[in-house]
């Protein structure tokens, strides 16, 4: 079902983790659909993404697209990071099954959400960046459940 690249990124995800005092954090998706992605960006004074980390709750494709997206933006400046579209993530993974295309969209949104957070914190405007639409907090009440 998945390409070798997807399986590789699922089995050996790159850049998993958190960044303390990150320059920007973005969380997208919701638990209802079964996918949540969180991206942490560490951006230096020249607006270069020095480090990036992610955490994902989701299927194999969700993990692989998050991992690939972090690889694609690492070391780039924020304008270049804006060019990392879902299509670019998919191509880099040699494609995704049709039902999993939404995972790549989520990866793009997660990067954008983290950039948005960075822009807000620093009072700057990033060309072409819009306020993220989906948000983890939609599902927050349900997360209280525990077993």
């Amino acid at each position, binding site marked *: 079902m998945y390409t070798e690249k997807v399986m590789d990124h699922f089995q050996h995800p790159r850049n998993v983790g958190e960044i303390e005092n990150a320059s920007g954090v973005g*969380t997208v998706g919701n638990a*209802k659909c079964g996918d949540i992605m969180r991206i942490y960006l560490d951006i230096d004074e020249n607006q270069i993404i020095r480090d990036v980390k992610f955490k994902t709750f989701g299927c194999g494709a969700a993990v692989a697209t998050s991992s690939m997206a972090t690889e694609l933006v690492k070391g780039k400046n924020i304008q270049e990071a804006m060019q990392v579209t879902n299509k670019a993530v998919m191509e880099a993974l040699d494609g995704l099954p049709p039902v999993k295309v939404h995972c790549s969209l989520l990866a793009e949104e997660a990067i954008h959400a983290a950039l948005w957070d960075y822009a807000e914190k620093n009072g700057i405007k990033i060309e072409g960046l819009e306020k993220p639409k989906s948000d983890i907090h939609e599902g927050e009440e*349900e997360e209280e459940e525990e*077993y």
Partner: protein
Amino acid sequence: MEKLIYLDNAATTKTSPEVVNAMLPYFTEHFGNPSSVYGFAAANKEVITKQREIIAGVLGAKANEIYFTAGGTESDNWALTATAEAYESKGKHIITSKIEHHAILHTCEYLEKRGYEVTYLDVDENGLVDPKAVEAAIRPDTILISIMFANNEIGTIEPIAEIGRIAHEHGVLFHTDAVQAFAHVPINVDECNIDMLSASGHKLNGPKGIGFLYIRKGVKIRSFIHGGAQERKRRAGTENVPGIVGLGKAVELAAASMKERMDYETELRDYLISRIEKEIPYCRLNGDRVKRLPNNVNFSFQFIEGESLLIMLDMKGICASSGSACTSGSLDPSHVLLAIGLPHEIAHGSLRMTLDEETTKDDLDYVVDNLKEIVAQLRSMSPLYEDFVKKQEKNKTEA
């Protein structure tokens, strides 16, 4: 991959070698059409009757009440649509549950589009249908009650005898989808007042593509597949002789070993459940603990998603299944897990393991050892788990 631990026997089972051997001559040697006149072919009629007798014997039914079909789905479709048509003049109301297999639920939806009304009964947190709720749902125009014998995902065994008694008292036909239960647990159609029962060959070490519908004598039911006079004119088409022989053999073997298998699987099942509950935090056993198929284990693991879990288990040679949306191609997780009240994200993180008589305790130890690590690994990369841990730390400092 060398190691293969198959824990997906509710999806399908291995066709047992004895079954295959019984079938083989009916491909190359006794290939004749049972409807033909000449002896070598006509003998196959007798062979089919013999299989019918074996199956009927296990159910406490009569041989001429067993109708061969292409499997459980066809049997379910037939039972519902043909009964609906035949009893239309009495009424157009059907009662079923929210946790039925899609072979029932989607057929009900089809009937709804054609003017029938369907009541989908709720189940409790363990997946049990309340017989009182069945009784309360019966109306003068109710023509059929269809409740599964045991649930395919969570293994809960429904109070079929009680529901059957209620159906009988109210003069309503009672169908049960016994695909997961037949030849796994004892079923007697008279004791349970079952009028129709669906079963499938490949869930009991028989071949795929063959099943049957038990139809109690006297039940008016239209034919579903039109054509020749096979199956007492109720199910046309040249009989799948090798399949029928294979099904008969599988039922014979399963019935003979049922008691020991139940004991063996129940012990293993409870061992697996107890190890998981002891060793993996934030998990929940889905389905009734006692009224449960001997071979079914179903857990939800909080903060992780089912498909990821399945792929990682697969890499360790473990075959299982999940109620996660991602395994079905839709965005919604299993309707069964939602019906028992699980929140979406917990339903997404479910794992079903279904054992068979070849499963060993060593297998299960290997599974739990790996499962523990995989769950921990997936949690370490889950934002839901991160939030949970942070919240706990915060609560601790505040306290």
